[in-house]
């Protein structure tokens, strides 16, 4: 049966702990959707919760805050993977609960 466990861990480790243009704290904060304020915090929150409402202005605001396109790319990836991770982990916990696992 399929098992994304290893590949998912590798992805998370790469985007959070590997080399990149955005700082390690910013990537981790984007992944967790915490501790970021201003236009960057707003963009991360939108990516996590309302990505379909994002506009050019949201991306431009991050540029105007001084982020390069590579940094924005990395932050957006971290925000998207982080939100998907939280949802996946919550669902697996619910399944374990339903199936009577510890």
């Amino acid at each position, binding site marked *: 049966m*399929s098992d*994304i466990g290893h590949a998912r861990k590798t992805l998370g480790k790469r985007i959070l702990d590997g080399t990149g243009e955005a700082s390690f704290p910013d990537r981790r904060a984007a992944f967790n959707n915490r501790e970021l304020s201003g236009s960057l915090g707003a963009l991360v929150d939108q990516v996590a919760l309302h990505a379909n409402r994002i506009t050019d202005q949201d991306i431009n605001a991050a540029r105007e805050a001084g982020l390069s*396109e590579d940094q*924005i790319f990395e932050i957006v990836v971290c925000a998207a993977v982080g939100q998907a991770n939280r*949802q*996946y982990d*919550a669902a697996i916990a619910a399944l374990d*609960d339903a*199936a009577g696992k510890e």
Partner: protein
Amino acid sequence: MRLQVLDSGHGFGTKALFALIRTVSRQPVLDVVKVVKYRADFYGKPMSAVTQEAMRGPSNWSVGDRELMAAMVAKTNECEFCVKAHSAVAQKAYGHEQKVSELLSDPKNAHVAEPLRATLLMLGKLTREHTVNAEDMRAVLAAGASPQQIKDALAVCFSFNVIGRLADTLGFSIPSQEAFDAGAKYLLARGYR
């Protein structure tokens, strides 16, 4: 595409590959491919490993079922690019266009096996509300899906909750149906590697 580097910042070898794709397929390179190929060691390669396992790894769900789940996640996220892309793959996999559109528009009443229906509804709730509880999972188990089938479906959901967010945030262009059909043919033949 909202970030110019993702449109034109690729290295020479990747640009040559894109030119080849355009020539052979007679279609534009899809934005999802441009993102996967941009600094591929950061996102594209590790994410493709996840998606390949979720969509083409061993599972009691068929390829069509998993592509349908991807389209359902995309529909719930209101991600037009992913809905069209994965509806096209599911239609080719099932060989039945109407079945996919019926399932996406009304999964509660569509003609489909109960385990798949219950799983689609659970994935919709998880994607819409960002969480589910044990009661939701008991409903899927009671409908006949095995715990492993649910895990396999959650893997699909993970992948497309990432990819859909990138599509909407980065502003993927919506190409013609012919371009989606060409992409679907490729994904069925080659997978997500």
